[in-house]
């Protein structure tokens, strides 16, 4: 089928893409935006990703004047019931101005705890357009909802966490955005990507491609991704317009902090099981390597389906990890740390839901887990903020950006950690409040994999210097 010039020229939104009808091939090739268009014979129209909306509109207007119809739904203007922004610090003002000057399209890179959220709220306040905020996890979803309500007086819609309440201003998660953007992609003038390093994954990126919003703001402390895809953020969000290094933030906006590593020993029974498991895995792998020198963990997993011995080795490996995660001694160390910091708000990061619940049941301290519902989550966070709860136990869901007010002591008792996670965890306790020094404890099992991970972590600049402490 050949492209034709039948009918009026129309631009439509179609499930995350734009359709251009009524323009013949030569006419499209003459447009300044010619290279974005692909002929789609299935529907008899030109198609492109919704992200091109602003550019496409300009080129059509430049070429055709008013002889075309824009049938893409328009972002509604928003009137904020109130604007009660806290006074911005100089670096926040600078970041906002840089974004504005870049045509309101770009990335702001600031360390955790330096007020990225306020920059975004200020951007929302001044653009006053329908806005979609995309956050990585549901804790952050609710946090954004609270902040928007508090600062802009607006009860934002929520899409995600099994809710689907769409409003001109809506907060959502990356996973929900990927699923629903085909339907909701043409409603927003501004889209905010919180912790934007989550965006460039092979699927999630489509959330950015399928949205028409011309104004885009990406926020992160750590844009780098090990797969190198952060380079794509330039296309998906916009250029880096402001960057503030962590070392600059330290001691200035952030509190000074210390890191202590607390080694714990396994109990005799744990040690025996741990070693038996290690032996089993080693023996199995060694036997395999005699025949296949390059035999790896991946091969073992592949074989586990057809070979009970491989499956046993796999189970032994997981049991080892679970012993490390849930070593009984960690609970004793925790008791000592609670004694040491009695009267100071303390947050405990566990490596798994099971361990978090174990700590909670031992010390009768509230938890924030991935399944914790909104009402309880609010009650716990509010209770912790007001000092009613001295301790909060979390699994990894609190790793990024979730506001935990004024915690001065953090204890990490497990969990795989990349550099980024470590930085995020530090950010949690480093908020500037008075002169009290923040402390981070890492409780690690001696002579196990956890110690190696801790060493690797200390190589990143955020953790220098580390001291050891025997409790």
């Amino acid at each position, binding site marked *: 089928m050949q492209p034709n010039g039948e009918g009026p020229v129309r631009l439509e939104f179609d499930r*995350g893409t734009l359709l251009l009808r009524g323009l013949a091939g030569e006419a499209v090739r003459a447009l300044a935006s010619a290279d974005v268009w692909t002929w789609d014979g*299935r529907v008899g129209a030109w198609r492109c990703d919704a992200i091109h909306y602003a550019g496409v509109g300009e080129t059509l207007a430049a070429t055709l004047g008013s002889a075309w119809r824009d049938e893409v739904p328009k972002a509604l203007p928003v009137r904020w019931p109130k604007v009660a922004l806290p006074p911005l610090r100089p670096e926040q003002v600078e970041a906002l101005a840089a974004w504005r000057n870049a045509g309101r399209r770009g990335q702001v890179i600031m360390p955790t705890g330096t007020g990225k959220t306020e920059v975004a709220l200020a951007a929302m306040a001044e653009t006053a357009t329908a806005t979609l905020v995309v956050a990585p996890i549901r804790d952050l979803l609710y946090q954004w909802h609270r902040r928007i309500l508090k600062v802009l007086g607006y009860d934002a819609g929520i899409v995600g966490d099994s809710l689907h309440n769409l409003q001109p201003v809506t907060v959502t998660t990356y996973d929900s955005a990927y699923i629903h953007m085909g339907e909701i992609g043409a409603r927003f003038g501004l889209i905010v990507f919180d912790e934007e390093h989550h965006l460039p994954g092979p699927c999630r990126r489509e959330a950015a491609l399928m949205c028409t919003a011309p104004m885009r703001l990406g926020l992160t402390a750590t844009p780098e991704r090990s797969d190198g895809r952060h380079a794509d953020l330039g296309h998906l969000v916009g250029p880096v317009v402001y960057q503030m290094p962590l070392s600059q933030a330290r001691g200035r906006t952030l509190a000074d902090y210390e890191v202590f590593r607390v080694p714990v020993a396994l109990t005799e029974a744990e040690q025996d099981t741990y070693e038996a498991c290690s032996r089993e895995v080693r023996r199995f792998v060694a036997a395999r390597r005699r025949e296949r020198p390059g035999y790896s963990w991946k091969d073992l997993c592949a074989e586990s389906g057809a070979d009970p011995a491989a499956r046993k080795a796999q189970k032994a490996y997981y049991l080892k990890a679970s012993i490390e995660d849930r070593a009984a001694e960690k609970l004793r160390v925790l008791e000592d740390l609670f004694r040491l910091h*009695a009267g100071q708000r303390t947050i405990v990061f566990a490596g798994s839901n099971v361990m978090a619940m174990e700590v909670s049941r031992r010390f009768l301290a509230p938890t924030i887990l991935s399944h914790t519902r909104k009402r309880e989550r609010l009650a716990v966070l509010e209770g912790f903020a007001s000092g009613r709860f001295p301790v909060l136990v979390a699994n990894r869901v609190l790793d990024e950006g979730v506001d935990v007010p004024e915690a001065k002591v953090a204890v990490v008792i497990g969990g795989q950690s990349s550099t980024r996670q470590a930085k995020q965890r530090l950010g949690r306790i480093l908020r500037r409040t008075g002169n009290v020094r923040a402390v981070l404890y890492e409780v690690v099992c001696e002579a196990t994999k956890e110690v190696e991970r801790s060493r690797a972590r200390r190589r990143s600049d955020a953790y220098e210097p580390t001291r050891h402490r025997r409790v």
Partner: protein
Amino acid sequence: MLTSQHVIVEYRDGRAWPDRLERKRHAHYTGYAERMLAIYRTGIGRERRALHRDVEMLFAEEPDCPVRRIRAFSKLLDEASTYQADPKGEASRLRLRVFEAAAPRHPLVRQKDRLFEHTESEVKAAIAADLGRQWDEIDARLYADVMAFQRLESFQGYPSAVALLSRYNVAQLQACLYAAERITVRATRDLKTILRYAKLARLLHEVRRTGPSEYVMDFSGPASVLRETRRYGVAFARFLPALLACRGWRLTAVLRTPWRTRAVLNLSDRDRYTSALPPPEEFDSTVEEGFARKFGPERDGWRLSRESEVLVDRQTAFVPDFVFRHEDGTAVLFEIVGFWTPEYLAKKREVLRRFRGRNILLAVPERSLREGAQADKNVVVYRTAIKLEPVLEALETVRLRQGRRG
């Protein structure tokens, strides 16, 4: 449906082989399936994680069983189960109450000393006394709402062990399609059902005729023309059970492997997967069925075939109920309009208008005609059943007209 955490696919020589339990090679799985169903049937009141553990234990010595297969079984069994969900948030309320009572006594220590005088056991005993319950009971209910601790309330189950295994095979096939970028169906029968379900799954089609009644249908989504995307994989998976219930088809799916290479999944009705859906009805209505029986396979030089031609205009596809083919090559499409709503009739008119260049004969019930309306030449009006004479007359009229033209 399974998630990508359950999927087992082997990629070999550029082809994808989803995990499938076979009647012969996995004959002993019928026994496993029966025991799994028994675990759930007798497991009312037990925790989810205990049921999962028991299912896992069944396979402890089974040489041929990947962990993912075990987890997939648990998922499929859970899908046919109802667990106590704690909708009133009792566990959550209990937690807040207990933690609030304990907070002023933090930290709960094992050994008292001069600074810290609240021991774990004393505080727990005191809270239990306040609530008028045993501490063990409180401890067991504290996190009763967590998925793993939820208790089985009822089990709808599967009709038989074989039904569970069939469901498993189809579920793995569907999960394999999550990684599909596009699919192609080559079909000779049940064309209407295939196109209708693809449309219900919101897929776009491209249809080509490759034989007298053979069609190739490519299915994909809006963005597929811009880039390779797995975005529509779930839609393909949703469409699949309807296809499995059809006859006379072959499917080719292009998949993206975890190593970012491509692989092809080939499938046909001869693979004998069992769909949970019944096969498409032979006829949409008794009027159709009655007419087909009366007419027979051939009459007066006209051969009758059912739903064997697809008319396509971009995203509008129309499969007339019958096609008459005369020995001299004349073909007439025959669509029977049933007793339907005005909206249905309006939509049908619009579709027919698009294909007005073709020989289409309509059978319209008398009461669907507007009062005093004069039926067109290509319309046969019927009361309760379609008579043969007016149809044959109309067919001849078309043939003669065609003959004059040709």
